[in-house]
């Protein structure tokens, strides 16, 4: 099979992976279907053990699937490994990898040779990437002396040596402190923004990271994709009502006066943000307003005049990706749950929304 520009960057069909184990086999992936368009920043979000890393291992040719097929730009991950390895790369987090005795620059150069760069071209690329990831001062330092964050930056530079067309990032910020994690995220965004045609598949169990970086996300649990969509789409999926936080200078009649309005499901007093005693600002009245739909808000705003109230602040409360996960799975990320129990609501891939052609080419 030869790759073509029409082929999806990642095309996964019915991938199953079963690990032989005692007392019984472990099903890491239970029939995954997934399509990632060229240029997408795609996230796999799920708790530990969901199957994210197993899928990345299969896509990066480290592991064979038990059943199903997976293709990278049309090349089969089981059989056409050489072609795939020239156009993809991977970085994993949460590990202390590296040849400690080598200098950072040496290690990167060796990998440049494994990726087929010429000697001089290799050194040039290494020096550029070392500067790009902010390791200029550590370029001649032994790998064993680098901090965890510095090692991950070096790992990132290694991952970029061959200008990968598909970049697999497996929990790349795992174990990093806040500033190092931010630096790695900035690297991801900066690298991809430079060449929009390049594809990133990120696995993470940090929801904020997935929310911030990914254009589309697949929520994975126990080897199944439960939902796919943009972060906004996924959140809308669980948002059955419109929830607003309304802050007023005063409210004659209290929240009950709003609860009677058409389209208002409930109006409950909330703690004002500026209610502390030391604040010089005037006290306000905060209300959590649950509406049947967004359009009911206009009636509420119109009614405020009659109630002698003025808006100080108004914000729509968005559900988080964690809310989405809880809604879909029936438990939080950190809860083990009962492995025998099926997810609360499994969403078929077609229902979850594969990218439309125009969306795929963005």
């Amino acid at each position, binding site marked *: 099979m030869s790759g073509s520009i029409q082929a999806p960057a990642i095309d996964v069909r019915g991938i199953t992976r079963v*690990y032989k184990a005692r007392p019984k086999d472990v099903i890491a992936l239970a029939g995954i279907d997934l399509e990632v368009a060229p240029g997408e920043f795609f996230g796999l979000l799920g708790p530990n053990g969901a199957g994210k890393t197993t899928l990345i291992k299969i896509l990066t040719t480290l592991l064979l699937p038990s059943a199903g097929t997976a293709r990278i730009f049309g090349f089969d991950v089981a059989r056409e490994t050489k072609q795939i390895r020239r156009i993809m790369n991977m970085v994993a987090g949460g590990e202390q990898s590296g040849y400690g005795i080598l200098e950072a620059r040496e290690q990167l150069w*060796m990998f440049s*040779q494994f990726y087929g760069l010429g000697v001089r071209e290799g050194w040039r690329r290494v020096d550029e990437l070392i500067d790009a990831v902010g390791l200029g001062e550590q370029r001649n330092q032994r790998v064993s002396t680098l901090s965890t964050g510095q090692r991950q930056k070096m790992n990132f530079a290694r991952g970029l040596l061959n200008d990968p067309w598909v970049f697999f990032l497996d929990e790349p910020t795992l174990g990093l402190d806040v500033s190092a994690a931010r630096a790695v995220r900035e690297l991801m965004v900066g690298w991809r923004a430079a060449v929009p045609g390049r594809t990133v598949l990120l696995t993470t169990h940090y929801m904020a990271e997935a929310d911030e970086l990914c254009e589309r996300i697949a929520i994975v649990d126990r080897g199944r994709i439960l939902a796919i969509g943009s972060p906004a789409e996924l959140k809308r999926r669980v948002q059955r009502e419109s929830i607003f936080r309304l802050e007023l200078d005063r409210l004659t009649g209290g929240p009950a006066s709003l609860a009677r309005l058409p389209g208002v499901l409930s109006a409950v007093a909330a703690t004002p943000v500026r209610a502390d005693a030391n604040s010089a600002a005037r006290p306000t009245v905060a209300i959590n307003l649950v509406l049947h739909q967004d359009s009911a808000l206009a009636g509420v705003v119109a009614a405020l005049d009659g109630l002698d109230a003025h808006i100080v602040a108004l914000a729509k409360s968005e559900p988080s990706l964690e809310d989405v996960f809880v809604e879909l799975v029936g438990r939080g990320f950190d809860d083990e749950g009962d492995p025998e129990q099926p997810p609360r609501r499994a969403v078929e891939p077609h229902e979850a929304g594969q990218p439309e052609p125009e969306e795929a080419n963005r």
Partner: protein
Amino acid sequence: MIEATIGRDERFDPARTRGQGRADLFRSFRTAVALGWKMEANWTDPVLFFIYSVAKPLASALILVFMLQVIAGPAGQALRPFVIVGSALWSLVVSGIAGLAWAVLDDRERYRMLKYIYVSPSSFVVVLLGRGIARLAVGAMGAGITLAAGVLVLGVPFDPGAIDWPLLLAVLVLGLATISALGVVMAAICLQTRQDSWTYPEAVAGALFLVVGAVFPLSVLPDPLQLLGLLSPLTWWIAGIRQALFPGGPSSIGGTGSAWLRLSGEVNPNDLQIVLVLLATGAVVTLASAILFRVGEGRARDRGLIDRTTGS
């Protein structure tokens, strides 16, 4: 900053999936040798290097020489070249067999880099061979020092002018290729095993030590073990080196009561026979190693063992 490092093409170019064939293989091999040399010859710790690469093989040879002296008395003097050469070469065999296997274990368990090498477009076996060559070179240094000590310190009679260079060159090339092939087999095995398989190569080498005529002739063994020894290319390699360095010396293969004598009707194999049998048995081992590595790599990939660490 990142923008400066990469191209601006926004469309996937299928030409990027094509490599440069042999040039890629050579580049990978050369780089792996350099990497292996850096890792194996850890010059920052010369004491450690000396102990493992010089003192250990030298001590092994000396133990055998003194045992021979005690058991055989003055008559053992004639067998010193036999023992010194066999012992020195055996340290090289152990290094060669272990080199690739330890590269697998090192990179997977200690450095956690095996998966990154594996998913690079380089040929995996070529990278491992490069790493193994470095360890083989370190082993060769130990063997050379042991031979030199035998000549200079233990009085082994050695005439450089009598060296059979064509034979030496032929058996060296064939033998080192065969040792590397055995290393490939061990690497395929260690891809399947746990961290504590560090000792497997030495265990295998130890078992082979019995039947290859390294420090005693095969004729002292029972027939089945003699036949096993005759099927091992290492037996012919060691015999060939001995014959090239010390022409006319005692043979580890033939002699009175040997299976070789009964099979061939000749007391000792000649140079051509040594080279031909080494070539044949070495080819079988090399072919088998290629098949075993392919099967082993496939099994490791199927079972998710390429990046599975067991030590932590």
